[in-house]
């Protein structure tokens, strides 16, 4: 029995590894199909930020899976065409701390869903609601508004220098062979 105990404990430890991150890819339409109006202004009595009108915000805001999906969709739907990887171009920059229409995830969701004056198109009906939430969460993460443990990494090609394994050998750099 004494010999079995460590083995049993080890097995229990190993089984703990079977727990994996929950990935919610199958939305329940009943929870919200993106039809509810979202407050678009911070001008509320008492000066508070718009109250969350959709219970999805909390589920998407700091979830690593949804953030990485948002990053993929940002690329797939060519958001960079105007926002240039968050740096801004034809459209405003997304990685600074300036939010024209509010920096809450509900506001960003409303921006993508309903569009904004001067160029931002509406993606209502073009992008399913959950995917808009994923995009909104990723846009928020661009300016460092999510826990770094959840934020997706920056692409290799956007690093200021090549990744370490692609750097030339420092010992031979600048010397003729």
């Amino acid at each position, binding site marked *: 029995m004494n010999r079995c105990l460590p083995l049993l404990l080890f097995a229990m430890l190993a089984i703990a590894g079977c727990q994996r991150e929950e*990935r919610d*890819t*199958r*939305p329940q*339409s009943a929870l919200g*199909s*993106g039809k509810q109006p979202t407050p678009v202004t911070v001008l509320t009595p008492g000066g508070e930020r718009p109250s969350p009108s959709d219970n999805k915000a909390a589920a998407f805001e700091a979830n690593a899976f949804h953030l990485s999906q948002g990053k*993929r969709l940002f690329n*797939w*739907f060519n958001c960079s065409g105007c926002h240039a990887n968050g740096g801004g171009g034809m459209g405003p920059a997304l990685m600074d701390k300036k939010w024209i229409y509010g920096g809450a995830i509900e506001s960003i969701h409303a921006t993508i869903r309903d569009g904004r004056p001067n160029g931002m198109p509406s993606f209502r*009906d*073009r*992008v*399913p*609601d*959950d*995917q808009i939430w994923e995009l909104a969460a990723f846009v928020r993460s661009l300016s460092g508004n999510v826990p770094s443990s959840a934020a997706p990494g920056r692409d290799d090609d956007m690093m200021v220098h090549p990744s370490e394994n692609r750097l030339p050998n420092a010992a031979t750099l600048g010397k003729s062979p």
Partner: protein
Amino acid sequence: MRRIWVMCGAASILPLAGCSGWQSALDPKGPAAGELAWLIWFFTALCTLVWLLVMIALIMTLIRRARPIGDPLVLDATSERHKTRIVFAALGATAVILIGLTLLSFFANRTLAVIGSDAALTIRVTGHQWWWEVRYENSQPNRILTTANEIHIPAGEPVRFILTSTDVIHSFWVPNLAGKLDLIPGHENVLDLKADKPGVYRGQCAEFCGAQHANMSTFVIAEPRPIFDAWLNDQLRPAAPPASPEAKAGHDLFLKRPCVMCHKIGGTMAGGSVAPDLTHVASRQTLAAGTLTMSRGNLAAWIADPQGIKPGAYMPVVDLNGDELNAIVAYLEGLR
């Protein structure tokens, strides 16, 4: 005890049943796979023979060891010479066999390398999570064809595959026709193969690539040249216009709803390039990279609940009501 042995024997025979059919390396249907199958059999036979010889020698030694032996400190010159000769003979035989197998493998590889040197057809296969983008290269831009998951090739002709990926490493493996080769992001691998006879050969992603790795299969369909040419010309046409009012409604919905963000239908405004090309989707035999067979019901099921059929796939659940779903399916069903 006897029953256990019988059961073990039966269990070891069971996997052999998987050795024939439309996805088996031991049932070669082309020169590349034939070369590899011959190597597999020869290696296995030779190694089994060597193993048997070693086992026989070992058992004989054990039996002889049972007899009493003399003083181990007394050296017998004749016996020592005899033992040295046996050890060196075994060493020599091992070296000869290993070098021989290396040479065989080397010459087999040389044969594989020249199969497609005069290939008239080049197909670019790009791996995506979890489907295959297939592009038929042509020097005339209007003859370049992009399709997905189903690869038609002319039988009896060498075909060159250029393999690459956009996300993670996948591996293209059609065991009846060729060995497997990886699809690597930012890198192009070249695989040549030839199907001797017309037929349908199943292929499977052979490098773990994520949640739906198992549901990432492809079909290589080898056809006689005239049928292949007809297929190619057919696929190069833009999509058929919707035939019924319902299909017309489906066409309009397709362009208004999220479908249009990712999928392409030639001849319409839908031009997405991140998901399978649907220009002739109903002409394909399967749906979602071999997950479902093509039928109206399966199309509807796939659109209504992709995350139930292929959890984690990048096809999202789209909020459609029953009429909208029916209309879109009616339209897609007509895209032959």
